[in-house]
């Protein structure tokens, strides 16, 4: 599991790779929050392109980051969800609090 973070103007870009579960979520959360607290971005982009597994701990991670960043007036965007991650995000109703890229069609199941 790793998080690559880059800051472009008002946008904080966090590229997560590996598995997001209850075991790994704590250190991912800390990496993102440390960067967001110093950068104070208007937009937090969470890039899921490198995420190979996720459960509801990943949904909690997005919800928690939304709660923090919206206090500073910022927004959250979910980018590059695989079909599987898109399905998980969708059933959680995440679109009410964050924008999300459409599912990566070329990799859709079956």
């Amino acid at each position, binding site marked *: 599991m790793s998080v690559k973070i880059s800051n472009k103007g008002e946008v904080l870009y966090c590229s997560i790779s590996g*598995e997001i*579960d*209850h*075991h790994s*979520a704590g250190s991912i*959360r800390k990496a993102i929050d440390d960067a967001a607290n110093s950068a104070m971005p208007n937009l937090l982009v969470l890039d899921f392109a490198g995420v190979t*597994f*996720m*459960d*509801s*701990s990943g*949904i*909690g*991670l997005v*919800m*928690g980051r939304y709660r923090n960043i919206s206090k500073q007036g910022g927004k959250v965007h979910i980018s590059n969800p695989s*079909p*599987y991650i898109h399905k*998980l995000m969708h*059933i*959680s109703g995440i679109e009410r609090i964050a924008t999300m890229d459409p599912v990566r069609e070329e990799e859709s*199941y*079956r």
Partner: protein
Amino acid sequence: MQVKNKFSLSFPALSANEGFARGAVAAFAAGLDPTLEEINDIKTSVSEAVTNCIVHAYKSGVGQVYIYCEIIEDDVVKIRIKDKGCGIPDIKQAMEPLYSTIGGERAGLGFAVMQSFSDKIRVSSKVGKGTTVTIYKKIMPRYRING
């Protein structure tokens, strides 16, 4: 009900074992030639149930988590995930989406995810005795052109 194959394992309720637990069940189910989607569904459901044992069941000390997995008729994978922890006082309420007794970084969606990623789940629990979640997932037969 005819059991075609089975395995069981138990491990201490440590978060480091979450990946191992879902990986073990996925590897066992791989014998039925599941699709990537079916494997992901199984891994996610197992991860939710096992994480619940680790996060919620044992308030003091580290208890054990038990997994009993069977392949039953019609290529159904039946996975029982059990703890001997605090139990759930109101199962119906616990299963409601967004309900969580912890909140914070927990979304309260574990049971909702298990329900939509498997064919059927059954929850039995007794306060002070523990909780058992049973997950059923049918692996569809696959017909391929050119084998």
